[in-house]
């Protein structure tokens, strides 16, 4: 195909991607280097009976509105935003490492730093939900494959629902059931005979609920892909394995699993990418007190009364770096394959 024709065809979609994906990435990087203009600050001292005193800075927004209108980006701050307490917080990390009382203390104090709180939950969500959802999907695929034909259609229909559902809606539905007044939440309180047990009060419970939601909503995708893969397992190989005396379990372990391995890599990659941007469930479960994610941090910066573009930009850049690290094995492999093809 001549260059000219090719670009005539690709142009609309290329322009859309450059304008609304590539340029915003540049824009995010630029934004992250700026902070809001200095504002009229009011210092407020906040004392708690046992927590000691902390000084808090309050902003007088009106005084700087004019300056803001002239230079909407704010003032140049270099990499300052990246290293402040709300992001990489190297100073705070250093202090924690020097003055800690054991691992538990480090963990608790690191979880108090907003960026690390979000990062840790995002990573836990990624690496717990992905394998569990794939295991669940594989289990369902094996079970559905063993069923008589008539039942398969309806089961696939119901299985698709948790995946196809709007993430915010799906998480709300589960949240309502799990809330202390909902059917599951009340049952759990009843089972453990502990009326104070609730999502809002317990960070552990919130994490478990979010992870369960993740497995629930991610499982069907693995199921559908693995189920399709199961249809392509060569019958000859299975039969010869049977003749050689392989048990049911051995057939799964040595014939089916290796056959599905390439699919599993693909599913794992897609799920990791999707789970890395976990966001809606945190809004749906109102979990922000106990669990946040990188995407939620950006959303939070942008949706307050004073939108913190610099802070959101810095978190965005760090998130994008995270995505590139996650994707790098695939990119390297694609690159190698491409080189091989060229040579």
């Amino acid at each position, binding site marked *: 195909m001549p260059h000219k024709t090719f670009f005539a065809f690709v142009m609309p979609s290329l322009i859309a991607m450059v304008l*609304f994906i590539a340029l915003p*990435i540049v824009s995010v990087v630029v934004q992250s280097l700026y902070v809001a203009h200095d504002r009229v600050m009011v210092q407020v001292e906040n004392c708690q009976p046992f927590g000691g005193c902390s000084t808090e800075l309050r902003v007088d927004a009106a005084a700087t509105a004019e300056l803001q209108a002239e230079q909407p980006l704010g003032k140049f701050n270099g990499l300052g935003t990246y290293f402040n307490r709300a992001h990489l917080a190297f100073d705070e990390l250093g202090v924690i490492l020097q003055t800690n009382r054991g691992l538990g203390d480090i963990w608790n104090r690191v979880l108090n730093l907003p960026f690390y709180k979000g990062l840790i939950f995002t990573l836990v969500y990624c690496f717990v939900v992905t394998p569990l959802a794939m295991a669940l999907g594989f289990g369902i695929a094996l079970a559905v494959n063993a069923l008589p034909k008539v039942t398969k259609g309806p089961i*696939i229909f119901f299985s698709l629902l948790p995946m196809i559902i709007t993430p915010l809606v799906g998480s709300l539905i589960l949240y309502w059931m799990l809330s202390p007044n909902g059917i599951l939440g009340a049952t759990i309180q009843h089972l453990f005979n502990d009326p104070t047990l609730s999502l809002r009060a317990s960070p552990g419970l919130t994490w478990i609920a979010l992870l369960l939601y993740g497995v629930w909503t991610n499982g*069907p995708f693995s199921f559908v892909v693995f189920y399709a893969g199961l249809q392509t397992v060569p019958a000859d190989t299975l039969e010869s394995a049977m003749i050689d005396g392989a048990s049911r379990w051995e057939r799964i372990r040595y014939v089916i699993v290796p056959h599905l391995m390439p699919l599993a890599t693909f599913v794992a990659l897609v799920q990791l990418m999707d789970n890395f941007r976990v966001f809606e469930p945190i809004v749906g479960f109102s979990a922000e007190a106990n669990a946040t994610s990188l995407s939620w941090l950006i959303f939070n910066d942008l949706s307050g009364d004073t939108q913190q573009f610099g802070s959101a930009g810095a978190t965005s850049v760090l998130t994008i770096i995270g995505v590139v690290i996650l994707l790098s094995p695939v990119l390297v492999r694609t690159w190698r394959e491409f080189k091989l093809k060229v040579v």
Partner: protein
Amino acid sequence: MSETLAHKRPAGLNVLIYGFIVFWVILAAFPFLWTVWGSFKVEADFFSRESWWNALFGTNTIRQTGAAFTGDGYYGAWVTRDFWRAAGNTIVVTLFVTIISLTFGTLGGYALARSGRNYAFWILIAALIFRAMPHITLVSGYLLPFFQLNIWGVLPTSIIVLVAINQPFTLWMLHSFFLSIPKDLDESAMVDGCTRFQAFRLVIMPVMWPGVVTTGLFSFLLGYNDFAVTAMLLSADNQTMVPKISSFLGSVQEAGNVMYAVAAVVSATVPLFILVLFFQRQIVSGLTAGAVKG
């Protein structure tokens, strides 16, 4: 094959398989059924402090409204709180997102599938990286420029942003569908005197419809399910259903009327049910079309 094996399976294994499937179907379907059922009750029943039997029998619903089922939640959401407007916006957004995505995507996907050059490969790789970008990181890049250009808050902006975010996925999916159509087809059309575009439109597109429908379903889902973009880029009047539901949570929960949100959630789920009901085959084939989803 599975049926010939079925009677060879030990009974214990059969129990395990059927038990697991029943467990999964309940897990997958029960939350939806329960919420649909509960949306016709009053709050004191659906969120009952005493016992969830109240939700089954509608004890408080009967006491408050005189019948076991009530449409109060729906009336509150759709009429009092203008959910109909959000529903209208959703229809506009998803319709245009789907149509524009498919137009751009078929043109681009076709060219990518037919050009064997290096830059086609690199465009696909760039699209793969773009596909992985969390949407909210992009949104944080849009806000400031959109404020400056004064195009924040309106539907067309959100539509074109969603189209762009959707392009990487659409390109990959349509690209692989186009690859499955033999090259000879358009080449012979061009030998017969068609231009490239005529060959694309008159020869290739008519055989591409299954692929277009499948890709369209996923474009629709992306536009319909989106929260990050529509929540940040639309003003309160122009909100689509999903951000509208989340705004219910802030204001309605305090007013003691969670049932509006429950009714809105159920209303937003119904179109998805219908979609799966009619397009189950296409959704499954789209998901399984190999490297498609990446």
